[in-house]
């Protein structure tokens, strides 16, 4: 799925790609945060689609950059840098990036157990939600009542994760069927 890339060597094109995709992700993220959320902590997570796209086409390292930069720069732009919201987002992003890395390693092209965008979206969303939840539980609201919320949040994350995976697959199919620009 990826061509091995040394972390210290980036071609100019890759820098531009990361910047471009991060910008796209941040834009979507900011637009999303303007919308009211159905339940606290639940966002459709459309920006995650960008992360998944980058993962499937350019590899895990690039996707990791995009995901983490999005949280960092996004929080600076929105004004939540180093706030509890920032730490929650960072925890979620970190968790999902790690899980995606694991799955990417397992899904080398040709492996019969390769995971596609659907599975990746699902896993990433569950990991993201878990990362956020446990940080919140340990650091901010360590009361057992919060635990009854966890299964509900995870159910929603699963659904939204599958949806984002589906969206990713669709976009990929479109990109592959026409001469791609990026």
């Amino acid at each position, binding site marked *: 799925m990826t061509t091995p890339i040394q972390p210290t060597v980036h071609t100019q094109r890759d820098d531009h790609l990361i910047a471009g995709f991060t910008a796209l992700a941040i834009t979507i993220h900011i637009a999303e945060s303007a919308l009211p959320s*159905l339940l606290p902590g639940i966002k459709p997570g459309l920006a995650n689609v960008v992360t998944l796209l980058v993962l499937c086409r350019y590899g895990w390292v690039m996707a990791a950059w995009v995901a983490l930069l999005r949280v960092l720069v996004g929080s600076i732009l929105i004004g939540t840098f180093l706030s509890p919201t920032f730490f929650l987002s960072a925890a979620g992003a970190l968790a999902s990036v790690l899980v995606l890395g694991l799955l990417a390693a397992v899904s080398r092209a040709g492996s019969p157990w390769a995971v596609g965008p659907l599975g990746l979206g699902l896993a990433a969303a569950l990991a993201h939600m878990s990362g956020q939840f446990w940080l919140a539980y340990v650091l901010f609201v360590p009361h057992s009542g919060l635990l009854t919320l966890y299964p509900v949040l995870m*159910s*929603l994350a699963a*659904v*939204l994760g599958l*949806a984002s995976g*589906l*969206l990713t697959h*669709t976009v990929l*199919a479109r990109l592959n069927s026409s001469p791609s620009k990026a």
Partner: protein
Amino acid sequence: MIVAVLRILLLFSLVFLSACERKPAAYHEQLLVFGTVVEVSLFGVSEQQGRQAVARLNEDFEYMHRTWHAWHPGPLGRVNQLLASGESFSAPPSILPLIQRGAELSRRSGGLFNPAVGKLIALWGFASDDPPTGPPPQPAAIHAILDQHPSMDDVVVDGIRLQCRNPAVKLDFGAFAKGYAVDRAIERLQEMGIKDAVVNAGGDLRAIGRHGDRPWRVGIRHPRQPGILAAVEVEGDESVFTSGDYERYFDWQGVRYSHIIDPRSGYPASGLSSVTVFSRQADLADAAATALFVAGPQEKDWLPVARAMGVAGVLLVDQAGTVHMTPGLTERIHFETEPLPKVIYSEAL
């Protein structure tokens, strides 16, 4: 493709949202009235209906509290003054039914429930807003009242006129006024077309109907420790009334003196921690709980009284924590304490 995705997403959201639908709840309100906390639970009524019904009950309770108060000035106080004078007088319509019902229940209890011993109650300090602190009254003072044998039989009712032959008589309906008031409240609710309700006045309750698709769940509090002693389900029309030595009392030199006075000895009854009575009418259940508390833990003493009063079930807890129960309650009572209490079954009612 995007449209299909959005459709699936919408479907999922709807599934989740529908799962959050709450079960219909009972209408519940708490009133601080009648000198206690009165909790009213109504099922199958709209918010507005509930509010109106409870407002009506609040008025009723306030009226009854003023009218029957044993020591604040009011109609009962005036009746007591007139009774003490020995003259014949017209009974206020708000008091007469109470006197007649009280007399009937007193007779059925063999005098163990005796609303005419108001002077004894006052002597022990339980006829006051402030809790009594002791010391217990002198035996001479107690006997001064006791030897005159105040009883409901001394109050002669002739049509609407009352006359009393015994100056030691003072009416204090505290031992069954709550039950009587709860009966009136339930009647009021039934008049309003409400069929499923619980009226709980200071822990004593009467329940009619059910809680929707299941019976009303009643928890009986443990007389000695925090938490619930037993759970029982109530439906149809039933009252659950408990008299206990933990309600009003004072401790003096290591002895607890509770507010339930034994009219035969002039001293507070002491063999039991609590008595819980199951019966349809609340005033009967209230009077019976008092009478059985006075009767004490010996089955030969309390069982005949329970039978004479016609109650449906009795549960007593003695000072050792042992539960005495009529067999009819076996299926219905589920004890909640760990470990389970020792239970002695009496003969059937």
